[in-house]
């Protein structure tokens, strides 16, 4: 049985688990892209070439924030890709939910408790890499950018 390195997280005012801590961080090279991975479980650090040039800034790199979801058991469901303009979502039932914001160049996601390291490395990491490489290059927006105008008129 896989040893779980991640701590359970509960906060009654954070039912979405937005503030689940992700203290582990590493930077990788994926083709010509640089990706910073932040996670709460070291099994979710991908087996990919590490970036050795520590001079790469956040602005030059994409980011994956991946949370091991200790409260969501069960296997992966069918893989459904939702392409919604600047957002691409991968849904495999509650056990795997990924969202890629192409404009902000970031992937956020939750990986269920029962998704083992092998499934993650052999199936989900290639999928994440494809998402990253297919991402539309765009300059990142400030975090609090108000995109109302665009959402109404585009």
């Amino acid at each position, binding site marked *: 049985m896989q040893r779980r390195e991640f701590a359970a997280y509960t*906060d009654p*005012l*954070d*039912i*979405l*688990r*937005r*503030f689940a801590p992700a203290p582990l961080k590493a930077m990788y090279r994926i083709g010509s892209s640089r990706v910073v991975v932040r996670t709460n479980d070291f099994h979710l650090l991908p087996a990919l070439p590490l970036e050795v040039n520590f001079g790469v800034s956040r602005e030059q790199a994409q980011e994956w*924030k991946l*949370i091991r*979801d200790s409260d*969501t058991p069960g296997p992966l469901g*069918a*893989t*459904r*890709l*939702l*392409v*919604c*303009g*600047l*957002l691409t*979502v*991968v*849904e495999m*039932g*509650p056990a795997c*939910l990924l*969202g890629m*914001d192409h404009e902000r160049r*970031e992937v*956020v*996601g*939750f990986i269920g408790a029962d998704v083992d390291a092998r499934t993650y490395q052999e*199936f989900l990491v*290639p*999928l994440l890499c*494809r*998402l990253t490489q*297919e991402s539309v290059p765009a300059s990142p927006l400030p*975090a*609090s*950018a*108000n*995109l*109302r105008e*665009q*959402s*109404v008129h585009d």
Partner: protein
Amino acid sequence: MDDIVTVNLTFNRQTLPLRADFLIAGTRCHLSTNSHDIMQLASQRQSQTKLINTSSFEMEVLVDSSRSDCCEQATHFRGLRHIVFATLPHGSFVAFDLLRKRVHAALSPSASRDLSFWNALLLPITIGVLGTTLGVVPLHCACLDRKGKGLLVAGLSGAGKSTLAAALAQRGFAFISDDWTYLTKQQSTLVAHGLFSPIKLLPDTIRFFPRLHEFVLRKTLNGEMAYEMDPQKFLQFIVTDMSRPGHIVFLERTATRGCHLVPCRPEYVRDFFEKSAERLPDELADAKAMRTGIIHCFSACPSWMLRTGESPQRTAEAIEMFLSEAERATA
């Protein structure tokens, strides 16, 4: 990507050619869909709201025939930064983009035909998740209207807000909501909105409302068993979807008989609603500031702590008398 992905759904003008606009909680929803069933559900959304704020959001609903109608699928919510995922019954899935104020829903055919899924689940969840970014503040309280003034009933979970709301509605107060009320502000006017959602009464309330024997207990969104019904159709309550907040009561049940109303300070109101509000990430700093401003304004409403050891009906009677006296005093 095609070798990995089972189903690929694209949300755009070609795949979602049908369009409609409707009002919900004082905001405008621009709906796009591929389903005439969804258009039919949206057309039944008859808001009585005249006051709307200037915000709007896009809702894209794609009905996907490959989705299985798994009614037993539990609701599951997760979110990071500005993206929120919701897995819903009927094999449905919704992604929210809070920065761009967009909702992308992939529904099964059965969900697209289910009025209760639309009214009791999809729309309340949408406003609950997206509302704060639209200037709509979700408050965990019941709301009723009496002579054009809103009475908001707050309290901790299990305090009996829904039961008291039902008892007040029995006395002729117009029912707006029993669980979540959505507050907006247009210029200096606060408006409390409901969503025409069903009322939810817990099993032990049957002793106060014997008519509940005619209904079946069902598992609700948060997993508890309750009687859920349309308050207008099944309980003959007067139902409306908005009011201007006039009074706030914080309900507290006590073991001793009697019903006492003690004035509350605005700081108490502010603290109660601010401290029970969902934490928001830095990406939504503007929304958080707007929420704080609206709660501040709301805290100026006259408010009381209501301590009661009486039945919901007796408590409702005491509130009505209290409000009548307050009206006479200010007349």
